[in-house]
């Protein structure tokens, strides 16, 4: 079994190298060409020095005079070879770098493309810190070996040349080389096998450290106000300590591997000297031949080290790649149908038929068997206690998630049958917690859509956001910072409302989206939506009686079910829970509603 596992690591490593080459074949070919030029010129430079010794230096010393022409030729040869070597270096290094970064960029695009493509249910199961780590350090790890790859493969040329020269000179001495090379690969295979699990663990711990940092910085306000900095640091310290131990254990193997690989060619050279001396004594070869073989052997140190660099990085590359593969292979992409939504203006008719939804890892459904219709242009308020499933329902209406059971109908069409982009063209959703992008006010409202500044200001006026936006230093061009950090909660909420309003949606879903907005402003928003000739259909999750009063009909929600529906007055009379909830404030003081 161990042999098979070792083979698997090596084979997978080779396949991974092949993957890199297949993805960037041209750049790789050019880098390899540069590397080959470098390799050939490295051998050539040794040859040049030998020739200069024989033809320029020794004759000069013998004759007691130097020919200027010969000297000039020698200098030209040294510089010429060096210049070619430099061309090789530029080709190899620059192109290898470009190849490595292209592979990184390409994979980052794929990984982040998946983040955008995969459904919310997938996101709910993957911590942000881990996803960041996938896109960052795992991608980096997966292609790190590309930097020395061309060098390592180009170095094979040196091995072939020196190997050939050695065999030609003396087959017995060449045997020593034959012994050394398999040893290098055996050591590498062992190394990969021991290293793989350690590298996997290190990458895993890197992700965990990133998760803790991300969560803890997100929670900064809570950490601060409860004075829990020490315990958070302790939590981070524990994981950082594990990562440290993991990296030390990686280092222990690496620290053994490097000197081992480096001493092999050295020992080889010594063996050549020992055996060679006997061969010279036997008269099998002459001293000159031994000198050249010894020299060739020292040349081998470089390619062996370069190949070692590539092989040493492979376990880490596989560890990174293995962590990304599940993201790239994750399915559950939202399927879209071929249908176009109705092109009519005005509100869309909404229908819910037996809707059910359960979060992953939870037995109890969050929403079950919900059935009701909202006629085109109608306004329905969804009211219910905290945690009864209202937000989940709101998300189902605009296809943030797909129901496990039942169908959501927009103008009679199953929203799953609509083409991509059709639902968001028809419906706008404003979440409980407004999310803003790190962009300008304008960018946050248009989101790249074709809206003029007049449209934007009109939407801002409806959302009662025009005053504060006017007061911002750069008006619509003001950058709101990451997540809209420079604005207050109420301001963020109003921009999120304006974002929905500017689209003139046929269906507007507000999930308690006006909690931080004054009641008067909320009334204005709803009035503006209803005032147009063709009013939008509105579903609003709300607690305020004023908001509820604007609705034609109220759906009473409890434990994930639409328990009752009817007018506000009807529910007040028939549903005790409803009356308790909406009258909570007025009852407290004994004031009649």
């Amino acid at each position: 079994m161990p042999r098979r596992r070792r083979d698997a690591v090596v084979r997978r490593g080779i396949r991974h190298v092949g993957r890199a080459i297949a993805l960037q074949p041209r750049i790789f070919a050019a880098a390899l060409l540069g590397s080959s030029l470098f390799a050939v010129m490295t051998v050539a430079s040794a040859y040049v020095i030998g020739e200069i010794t024989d033809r320029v230096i020794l004759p000069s010393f013998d004759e007691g005079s130097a020919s200027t022409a010969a000297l000039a030729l020698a200098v030209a040869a040294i510089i010429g070879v060096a210049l070619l070597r430099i061309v090789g270096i530029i080709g190899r290094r620059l192109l290898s770098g470009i190849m490595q970064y292209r592979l990184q960029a390409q994979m980052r695009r794929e990984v982040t493309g998946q983040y955008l493509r995969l459904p919310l249910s997938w996101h709910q199961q993957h911590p942000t810190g881990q996803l960041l780590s996938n896109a960052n350090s795992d991608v980096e790890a997966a292609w790190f070996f590309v930097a020395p790859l061309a060098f390592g493969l180009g170095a094979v040329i040196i091995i072939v040349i020196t190997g050939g020269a050695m065999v030609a000179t003396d087959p017995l001495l060449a045997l020593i080389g034959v012994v050394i090379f398999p040893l290098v690969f055996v050591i590498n295979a062992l190394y990969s096998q021991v290293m793989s699990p350690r590298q996997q663990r290190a990458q895993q711990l890197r992700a965990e450290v990133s998760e803790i940092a991300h969560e803890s910085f997100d929670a900064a306000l809570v950490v601060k106000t409860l004075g829990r900095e020490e315990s958070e640091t302790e939590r981070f310290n524990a994981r950082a300590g594990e990562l440290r131990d993991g990296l030390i254990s990686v280092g222990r193997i690496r620290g053994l591997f490097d000197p081992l690989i480096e001493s092999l060619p050295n020992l080889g050279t010594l063996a050549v000297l020992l055996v060679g001396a006997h061969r010279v004594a036997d008269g099998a070869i002459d001293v000159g031949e031994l000198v050249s073989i010894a020299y060739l052997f020292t040349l081998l140190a470089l390619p062996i080290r370069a190949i070692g660099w590539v092989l040493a990085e492979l376990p880490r590359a596989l560890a990174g790649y293995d962590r990304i593969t599940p993201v790239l292979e994750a399915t559950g992409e939202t399927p879209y149908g071929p249908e176009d939504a109705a092109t009519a203006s005005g509100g869309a008719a909404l229908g819910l038929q037996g809707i059910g939804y359960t979060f992953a890892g939870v037995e109890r459904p969050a929403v079950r068997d919900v059935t009701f219709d909202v006629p085109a242009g109608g306004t329905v308020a969804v009211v219910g206690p905290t945690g009864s499933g209202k937000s989940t329902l709101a998300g189902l209406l605009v296809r943030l998630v797909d129901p496990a059971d039942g169908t959501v109908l927009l103008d009679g069409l199953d929203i799953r049958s609509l083409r991509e982009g059709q639902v968001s063209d028809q419906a706008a959703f404003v979440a409980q917690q407004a999310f803003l992008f790190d962009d300008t006010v304008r960018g946050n409202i248009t989101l790249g859509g074709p809206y003029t500044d007049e449209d934007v200001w009109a939407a801002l006026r409806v959302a009662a956001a025009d005053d504060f936006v006017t007061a911002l230093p750069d008006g619509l061009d003001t950058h709101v910072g990451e997540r809209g950090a420079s604005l207050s909660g109420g301001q963020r909420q109003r921009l999120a409302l304006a974002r929905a309003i500017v689209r003139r949606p046929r269906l507007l879903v507000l999930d308690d989206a006006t909690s931080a907005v004054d009641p008067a402003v909320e009334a204005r928003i709803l009035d503006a939506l209803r005032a147009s000739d063709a009013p939008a259909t509105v579903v609003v999750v709300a607690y305020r009686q004023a908001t509820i009063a604007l609705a034609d009909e109220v759906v009473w929600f409890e434990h994930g079910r639409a328990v009752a529906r009817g007018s506000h007055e009807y529910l007040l009379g028939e549903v005790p829970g409803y009356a308790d909830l909406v009258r909570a404030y007025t009852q407290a003081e004994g004031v009649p509603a």
Partner: protein
Amino acid sequence: MTVTLPDEDRREGAIQTLRRGLRMMPEFRRGLPLTVLLAVLATAGRVVVPIAVQQVLDRGIGAEGGPDLDFVTWVVLGCAVVVVLTAVAVYRMNLRLFRTTETALAGLRVRAFRHVHDLSAVHQQADKRGALVSRVTSDVDQLSQFMQWGGVLGLISFGQLLVATVVMFVYSWQLTLVVLVCFVPLGIAVRWFAAELAVVYGLVRERIGDLLAAVSESVVGASTVRAYGVRERTAERIDAAIDRHYRAAVDAQRVAVGVFVSGELAAALANAALVVAGIYLGLAGDISAGTLVAFLFLVTLFVAPVQTASEVINEAQNALAGFRRVLDILDTEPDVRDPATAAPESSLHLPDGVLGVRFDHVTFRYAPGARKALDDVDLTIAPRRRVAIVGETGSGKTTFAKLVTRLMDPVEGRVLLGSDDAGWVPLSDVAFGSLRARVVMVPQDGFLFDATVADNVRYGAPTISDAEVTRAFADLGLTDWVEGLPHGVTSPVGQRGESLSAGERQLVAVARAYVADPDLLVLDEATSAVDPATEQRLTRALDTLTAGRTTLTIAHRLSTAERADEILVVDAGHVVQRGSHAELVGTDGTYARLHASWRRSSAGEPEPVA
């Protein structure tokens, strides 16, 4: 408050950075001398083989009267022993180096993490969080990666350079000078390159931070991206960040290649100069042909580490760029410092007993020149009072809460806590340990950790049991809610608490503050997303439970104000009214207007036409 991290001075020299770094990583210095000694030994192995070749050829095989095989055997065996010992020395050195650097880096990581929590940048503005994460993760990783090979290689190369120079001097001081002169331009070029590399790699690290920010936006804003069908637009933004990083990385690579090419040029120059100078020196009778030939061989010992070193310099600058970003965090002074660490002698504990609040002519603005968020507020809240702070959005209510809990300090004036009996203590002198144990705030977005409900509540009181958590919820009138959870208080809440609704998260956050048992409780819109019936139940329970404590409640649902002992009405940074609900509701003023509006909205009456 715009708390900015200092602009990165990417041109800071490597030595300065290292000195700064060593100050922050005391672990690193431990045992360093022995590591350096091992590095010197390791160098020996690199020199021994070329010497062996020369000895065997000159004195073994080329010995007078035919090859001296015994001599060859002894030299080879001796050298083999040295090679093996060297390998062992390198191994030992690697172990020591990895252990100390990883330990030092883990320490650095943790210190930076701790320091980030001290900086208001992180809790005042979500801004830069992605980038902050990158400073305790990928920036430190970069350093660690460098240390796994670059550090070792750098040390060995440096040692080899020294040994090679000495050996060269032994053979011929004149030729050694020739070689050194050829490398002088390289030395100058490397200084320039190092500065340039610091800039380009600094940019690379910065681009990684931007990239992480863009990715985290798409992940955290996943539902907005989907609801508005802006997948492509978001992808374009991320792709742009990816491309910017790619371009920065390739630019850096270009400079790095420049370094390598310079090293190569210097080596070629040295070889050519050696041949020319060697022959002329030889003709003048200063050196022999054998010395020159040997020297040509020796110079490769000098050139190789120079080339390796230029490689290491590249990687080092990359790592240093990350290092600088981590150190910059540590060098940023927190704008609100814990007196217990800043000035331990003068730091105080809060007086015993219930705490009142006193604002002594407090003025606050979020940035120099900005509008005053609070303007010369001067008031005292007696202990045991239940106080509601009301006012329109942007009137300064939250500023009030942040000053009382010392998330920030006033621009002018002082905030004091205490009572007339026990004395008043300036907040700026109170040790955080004492402050946070007795003054607790529940913010609107009460962040939950990816753990169970009970774990999150325990965040306020680490030692309590699950049963006690259950009892706490019962005290707060939330038993029904807990029983409705799939696994009661041991139900997991998901990351950021997202398996719960916003209102449910607020319930847990209130319970968390309740078990912390503070003397002064500050609720900043803490129940804004909770349904009215539950909120009424909860706040009534809290009123009873916190009887005898001081509570400050900020809420736009004025039911809270109706029950408060006292109401502070804030408008444009001033406290414009103060009194009980009964007193204020009949007086023509801001409160009466706010209350009427709220009453209408909660009773479902239409707004009067303005």
